[in-house]
């Protein structure tokens, strides 16, 4: 009994939530009904205004963790906090959340504008406000001209941008993204990365971003959480102290390569230990 208390004490002292904490995972475990141990003792604190990437090999539980943050999955043990509350708060100013899935996940029967408007329709925002926000979100992803198109008339990259616009229309304070650019070519991906980074810098926005790509993680993040597989767990956290405004030059800077090296080492070491 005494030992248990001490143990929890030590955890709280290392990463304790404060008033700026947006997401907090304390000793989170996830075992799926079929017995897969997807996450083991995950502790994570994400502060307001951070851009956090979850980086790790396939099957290490990145999506599982993100889906838990989204409230789509329950932890088997441990607990989660959203803005220091035990349940995800209802939609309100300063505490809204949106998620971008790995696939575009658009409604094929609705045109682009209706797809982007969906979250606003569901939470019954003011009608005029909806139109304004949809237009603004489409402008941000550069798809204003396509608002009357149907999803099947768009390329994969455009569909993904619609999906991002749908999340942005909520004007979220917390944005969860599950490998949103995984299926795109490198050129488009780099461009969207830069856009996302600029967007994040200009607003009160916390991003949790899942990726396989070390380069993408370093380019985007203020912090990278490195994860290992079987069972999925957090291996380490690396703060990226790059320039505030990042452009293509950052991608070839010694700093950038240094961080890539650090992350790559961490990942390799985790896998060697595992073998």
């Amino acid at each position: 009994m005494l030992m248990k208390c001490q143990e929890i004490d030590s955890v709280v002292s290392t990463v304790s939530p404060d008033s700026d904490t947006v997401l907090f995972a304390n000793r989170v475990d996830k075992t799926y009904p079929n017995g897969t141990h997807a996450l083991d003792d995950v502790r994570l604190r994400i502060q307001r205004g951070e851009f956090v990437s979850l980086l790790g090999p396939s099957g290490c539980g990145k999506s599982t963790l993100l889906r838990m943050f989204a409230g789509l999955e329950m932890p088997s043990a441990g607990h989660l906090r959203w803005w220091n509350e035990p349940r995800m708060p209802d939609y309100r100013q300063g505490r809204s959340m949106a998620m971008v899935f790995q696939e575009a996940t658009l409604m094929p029967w609705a045109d682009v504008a209706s797809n982007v408007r969906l979250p606003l329709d569901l939470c019954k925002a003011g009608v005029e406000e909806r139109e304004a926000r949809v237009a603004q979100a489409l402008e941000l992803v550069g798809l204003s001209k396509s608002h009357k198109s149907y999803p099947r008339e768009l390329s994969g990259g455009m569909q993904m941008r619609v999906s991002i616009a749908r999340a942005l229309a909520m004007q979220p304070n917390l944005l969860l993204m599950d490998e949103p650019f995984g299926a795109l070519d490198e050129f488009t991906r780099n461009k969207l990365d830069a856009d996302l980074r600029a967007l994040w810098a200009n607003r009160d926005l916390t991003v949790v971003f899942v990726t396989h790509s070390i380069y993408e993680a370093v380019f985007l993040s203020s912090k990278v959480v490195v994860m290992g597989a079987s069972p999925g767990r957090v291996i380490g956290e690396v703060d990226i102290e790059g320039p505030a405004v990042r452009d293509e030059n950052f991608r070839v800077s010694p700093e950038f390569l240094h961080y890539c090296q650090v992350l790559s080492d961490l990942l390799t070491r985790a896998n060697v230990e595992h073998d």
Partner: protein
Amino acid sequence: MMRKELLKDPRVVRIVAPFLVGIVLVGSWQIVCVAFKVPVYLVPTPLNILQTLIANFGSLFAALLVTLKITLLAFLCAVVLGVAMAFLLVQGRIIEVSLFPYAILLQVTPVVAIAPLIIIWVKSPTPALVVCATLVALFPIISNTVLGLRSVNPGLLNLFKLNRATRWQTLVRLRIPSALPYFFGGLRISCGLALIGAVVAEFVAGTGGSGAGLAYQILQAGFQLNIPLMFAALLLIATTGVALFSCMAWLTHLSLRHWHESEMG
């Protein structure tokens, strides 16, 4: 040059190709009948049939209207009941497993076998016939709509959950649109079945008089060995079936043309 381009248009081809096949078939039918001097009481020529159709158009058309009325009423009932039952069935696994076997029972029971019962139970002829035809047309609507309401993209379902959509919002904005292609598939099968059900029920009921449908015309023509008249009535039934199907196909096209794969190209 012009003609070649016209033939490349898929819409033109879709009308012209079956039409040509029809002309060839009917033409060879006429030629074979005339060449081999097939007697009219065995196989009438297309010209015979056309003449009979025109000569008896008044009575045939009146009979057609009766059959059509029963078909449409039954189809309407099947759609309303089928959709209502589908919504009921998808409310929960327990409801589905306890009720679905009875829906199947409905499907596998031959209408000819239960039509006499229904005709005895339901005294007035028109409702009795409508009930029989509805029974035939009901199942495809139920099974297709249930399948559709269940075939929702899980990613979209997550999106709705994430945005705290109510059950009602999820139904109206997600489940119903997802179910539409399946529902329309059900309509196409069901409209033909409603017609078949109506004709079969008329056969079993065998009611004559002023309110008699096309089946009665065929029965009468059979007794009188008036084969061309039988063919003329048959032609009307077949044409009605094709027309009903085309209506449904057109309705499907109107609702799905923007987004569903089945209506592309």
